[in-house]
């Protein structure tokens, strides 16, 4: 009892004020950091739009790449990207959804299932360029697909497989057990339970996973550079539909291609300043598409969460 009572209360009060002040200071720091990150995102987009502004014309969308910056366009790039996305979606979505159903509804709890699960987690962390090396060795040379749209689509499909699997699994896991048990109680088989009850409730998650996966695939550059996409392509792949029988053709699958991110990379790495504005315009379109897809995914997730009341 060396110090008089009132002094220690004073000290306590001072300490309390200081601690409360620090608390408030941290709130400000936290908000600032967060806003700064969001601002940077906005700035990034504005910078692209500003730099690429002179190139936002219809000719930009309908012209092939050219040696002259003002005449160059992204026709072959966006057509290539669309066709690659078609292949990617066609391969990744069924396989990813099926794998997710297996892991959630069918897989027994044993070491074998554990290995598959660890593999999915691990694949999500493999750098995208390693997928490119896999594709170069396996698709391009061993399977002899060449530097084609099919090879690129398959590569990106493998790349987004974990995204689709994880998102679908989350959606399936959110379906209450009672729904399954009710269906089993009526004598449904496991597949009938899954197909008629679990999957319809998981549509939102499946769609979200698909869109998020594709939005990742659309911007991936490294893996398709590795398989050897050409950046100067002044022609389009063979059209998938034609007026004469057999009406559909799959020639485009084996055609060489370029894609939006490749085209942008090609322009960015040129020393000529004029091409930087082309790169910015292509980047703004690419970023706009990615943000749009992510926005749609967030909206779908929100809608489905709201609509279903268990």
């Amino acid at each position, binding site marked *: 009892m060396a110090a008089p009572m009132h002094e220690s209360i004073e000290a306590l009060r001072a300490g309390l004020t200081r*601690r*409360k002040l*620090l*608390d408030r200071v*941290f709130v400000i*720091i*936290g908000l600032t*950091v*967060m806003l700064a990150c969001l601002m*940077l*995102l906005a700035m*990034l987009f504005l*910078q*692209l739009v500003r730099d690429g502004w002179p190139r936002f014309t219809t000719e930009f969308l309908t012209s092939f790449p050219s040696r002259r910056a003002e005449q160059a366009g992204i026709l072959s790039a966006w057509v290539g990207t669309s066709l690659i996305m078609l292949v990617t979606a066609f391969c990744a979505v069924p*396989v990813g959804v*099926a*794998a997710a159903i*297996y892991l959630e509804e*069918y897989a027994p709890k044993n070491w074998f299932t554990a*290995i*598959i699960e660890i*593999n999915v987690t*691990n*694949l999500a*962390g*493999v*750098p995208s*360029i*390693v*997928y*490119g*090396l*896999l594709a170069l*060795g*396996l698709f391009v040379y061993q399977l002899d697909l060449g530097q084609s749209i099919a090879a690129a689509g398959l590569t990106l499909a*493998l790349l987004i*497989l974990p995204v689709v699997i994880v998102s679908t699994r989350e959606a399936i896991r959110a379906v209450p057990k009672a729904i399954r048990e009710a269906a089993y109680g009526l004598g449904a*088989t*496991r*597949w009938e339970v899954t197909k008629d009850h679990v999957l319809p409730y998981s549509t939102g998650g499946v769609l979200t996973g698909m869109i998020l996966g594709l939005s*990742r695939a*659309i*911007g*991936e*550059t*490294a893996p398709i*550079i*590795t398989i*050897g996409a050409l950046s100067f392509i002044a022609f389009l792949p063979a059209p998938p539909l034609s007026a004469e029988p057999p009406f559909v053709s799959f020639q485009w699958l084996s055609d060489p291609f370029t894609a939006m*991110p490749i085209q*942008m*990379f090609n322009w*960015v790495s040129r020393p000529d300043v004029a091409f930087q504005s082309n*790169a*910015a315009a292509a*980047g703004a379109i690419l*970023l706009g598409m*990615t943000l749009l897809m*992510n926005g749609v995914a*967030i909206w779908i997730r929100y809608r489905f969460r709201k609509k279903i009341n268990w």
Partner: protein
Amino acid sequence: MNTTAPAAAGFVTQTRYRKVRDRIVELVLLAAGLVAMLTTVAIVAILLYESSAFFEHVTLREFFTDTLWTPLFADAHYGIMPLVAGTLTTTMVALLVAVPLGTTIAIYLSEFAPNRVRETVKPILELLGAVPTVVYGYFALQFVTPLLQMIIPDLPGFNMLSAGLVIGLMIVPYVSSVSEDAMRAVPRYMREGSFAMGATRLQTALRVVVPGAFSGLAAAFILGISRAVGETMVVAIAAGMQPNLTFDPREPAATITAFIVQVSLGDLPHGSIGYQSIFAAGLVLMTITLIFNVIGFFLTRRFREAY
């Protein structure tokens, strides 16, 4: 009586058909699950197969001790160290950005922000990680580098600093979302105990929640490192593609990933040593990221089980 027998028989056949169908579906689904496993096996097999040809020409000793990496020159040297140094330097810069920013955001979102703010901000923040990396590359080269040149006048146009900073920004949402998950896994009663002792929110966050979520935070940083190590386009665009044995972020240098891109841009004949060298580089990259991913995997599992 006579009419039920065929009906029952029909029911039995139908049940058997449904059971067989269930079995077939299960096998199809299992096959899809195996794709994930086969992909991993294929990646390892391809990397090892093509690298083994590379290591017939190059000794492991040369690979790890030579200080020059010039596989495409007439006077070819195959020392991976310059590429590893570039990778480590950009990763370090990225971490210096991502760890403080990511952790601050995570603490704020988990301990301070009202529910509505968290639910709104999180998806927007995730967009930072969704921006195509080639766009980030443009941003680093055309925006960040000129900005840095105002502060450091003799900064070259290609440098690891701006690439690292932008990669850091890119992995902020990743670090913050894993850290936030870890902090939210710390049980409520620990916070309440701390509040009851008169601690403020900040004290509780720093002295109770952060230590309690330590393994999760460590996992976030380690998974962040793995992302930064594997990042390709930003370094390929903004850091130059010249292998350079230095740890000075102000200098241009190539990373492992940038080298792979550089070689892929040229037209290398299949089976040449240059072609094989990108698989050897890929093998090193895969090993580094795999080590970090495995550590991260076990750490996240620990924080999920801890409470």
